[in-house]
């Protein structure tokens, strides 16, 4: 009889142990944790409700569908994106909700069920319940009604005031211009200064010839460059003086273009023609003129410029000087 009781007891204990240890292996591998930033808030304050699941990579866990509120009194302000981290062989999945409550009291956040599947077995795991206490402010009805919080300011941007800035700038510009015009009238000065007259071509040419003489090119055996410079200076002078694009003309064409101007001074025409011919020989036929011929070419260039230049009248010159002084 005793032996039979002993056998029964052993069978019952074995059954209980088996029942207790029959928890799925997969559920043991999933760690679920939910928590709040704080358990007590002032009415209207915001806090995070965080769900963390640590699970093996091969298990897929489904989150419960939580839409706009956790309970009837706790609202979800914002659902933040799910964050997934690797922790060893596991995934750590973290989901945060920004929540708030506008009713004072103590509220319980219910447990949520998370479904998962492991080796063709469907199962669930539950989160723990949490309590959130929402405090209110003591209301003194005798006092004036005031805001609980000051008004929140959005970040400042210049684009908000661009038109005001532009308008202000234009107004300042108009005022400045008006003052400048008033001052010019008061000093009896014209509004706009006349354009500074361009340097007469003969001044430029004579300056360039002086520079060429000082460089002593032919004395340094740079005869080709020397004659090229002389003809270039004269061609630019002719362009400025007569409006003939001499830089694009050959020697014969230049002489032909100037024939009406030079026919009145045959001596000048001859010396200018000789200058161009000699320059052509030096430039294109390796000619090496005698030192005197080099000097004569430069002198002929000076003569050509001096005899064909248009002198500004004294009145104009005086006016120009006056204008320059005023500037």
């Amino acid at each position, binding site marked *: 009889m005793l032996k039979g009781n002993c056998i029964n007891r052993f069978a019952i204990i074995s059954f209980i142990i088996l029942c207790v240890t029959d928890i799925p292996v997969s559920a043991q591998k999933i760690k679920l944790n939910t928590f709040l930033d704080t358990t007590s808030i002032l009415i209207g304050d915001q806090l995070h409700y965080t769900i963390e699941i640590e699970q093996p990579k091969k298990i897929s866990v489904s989150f419960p569908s939580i839409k706009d509120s956790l309970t009837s009194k706790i609202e979800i302000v914002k659902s933040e994106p799910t964050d997934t981290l690797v922790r060893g062989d596991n995934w750590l999945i973290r989901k945060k909700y920004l929540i708030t409550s506008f009713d004072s009291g103590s509220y319980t956040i219910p447990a949520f069920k998370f479904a998962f599947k492991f080796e063709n077995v469907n199962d669930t795991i539950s989160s723990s319940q949490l309590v959130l206490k929402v405090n209110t402010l003591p209301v003194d009805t005798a006092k004036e009604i005031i805001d609980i919080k000051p008004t929140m300011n959005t970040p400042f941007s210049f684009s908000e005031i661009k038109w005001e800035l532009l308008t202000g700038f234009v107004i300042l510009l108009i005022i400045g211009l008006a003052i400048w015009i008033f001052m010019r009238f008061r000093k009896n000065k014209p509004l706009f200064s006349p354009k500074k007259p361009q340097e007469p071509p003969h001044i430029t040419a004579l300056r360039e010839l002086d520079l060429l003489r000082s460089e002593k090119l032919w004395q340094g055996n740079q005869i080709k460059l020397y004659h090229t410079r002389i003809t270039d200076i004269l061609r630019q002078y002719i362009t400025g003086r007569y409006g003939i694009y001499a*830089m*694009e003309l*050959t*020697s*014969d*064409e230049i002489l032909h273009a100037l024939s009406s101007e030079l026919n009145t001074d045959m001596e000048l025409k001859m010396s200018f023609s000789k200058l161009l011919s000699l320059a052509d020989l030096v*430039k*294109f036929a390796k*000619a090496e003129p*005698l030192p005197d011929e080099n000097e004569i070419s430069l002198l002929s260039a000076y003569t050509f410029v001096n005899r064909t230049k248009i002198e500004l009248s004294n009145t104009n010159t005086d006016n120009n000087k006056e204008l320059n002084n005023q500037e």
Partner: protein
Amino acid sequence: MSEAVNIRELNERIQKESSFVDLIQIEMGKVIVGQKQLIESLLIGLLSDGHILLEGVPGLAKTLAIKTLADTIDAKFSRIQFTPDLLPADLIGTMVYSQKEENFLVKKGPIFANFILADEINRSPAKVQSALLEAMQEKQVTIGTNTFELGKPFLVLATQNPIEQEGTYPLPEAQVDRFMLKVVIDYPKKEEERGIIRQNLAKSFPTASKILRTEDILKARDVVKDVYMDEKIEKYILDIIFATRYPQDYNLSKFQNLIHYGGSPRASISLAMASKAYAFIKRRGYVIPEDVRAVCYEVLRHRIGLTYEAEAENITTENIITEILNTVEVP
């Protein structure tokens, strides 16, 4: 002035060697009234070993000018009238079976001469034109298995008529490029035409005398090659050619949409060579910018391709060359 020795010697040599130029001009002037530019162009082609394409309306003495030039030189002259039924064998020759020899013998065509007048070249189909143009380029022809060198000098003077385009075969651009010069002949002046009338109504028509041998021409060609061309002139030639290719680089952006293609390297060579020949004709031992400008139209007018836009706006290659010459800086 003490010029560099080589140029002075060259000038003296050219003065001596180019004396025949005046004689040719005098002899041609006996037969051809006016057309000074045409005569000069023919001499440039003759002296620089370049073939010439003559274009002009009928009756402007194109054929007569070429025939007269050939008459002044003791050389073989052939005139080939290009017709739609002409065959390459009619031009270069063929193999003929000889019963006596019992063998095929080579019968050389009219191309075996020193001066070839290809009259109305655009009246023959492309295969005949190609045969001629190949001979022009290679200076040799192959008949059967034998290759024959053509005579020296070998100068082709082709004429074409700008009107009556019906039934003609215009020369392709690539083949036109093989002509060194394209000379466009215009009507003579009133005084010149009066001389032409009187000359033709006279009892006897003047003829040109032979004053030169082929050896003289070959010798003159060597002298022409010795004419000195300074690097400034070379740069000027390159600027002109490059302005036809890249007008935007020479402040001629307006031509960018008007020029389809510019001058080829053959154009640069021809412009340089023709400039030297022109300097020789003017009895100078060196090239000056005037020489380049004088031959520029003849060398470039057939080497610049125009777009449809240019044709629609009636812009010619001559307009473009003029603008380029007025824009490119003269050295």
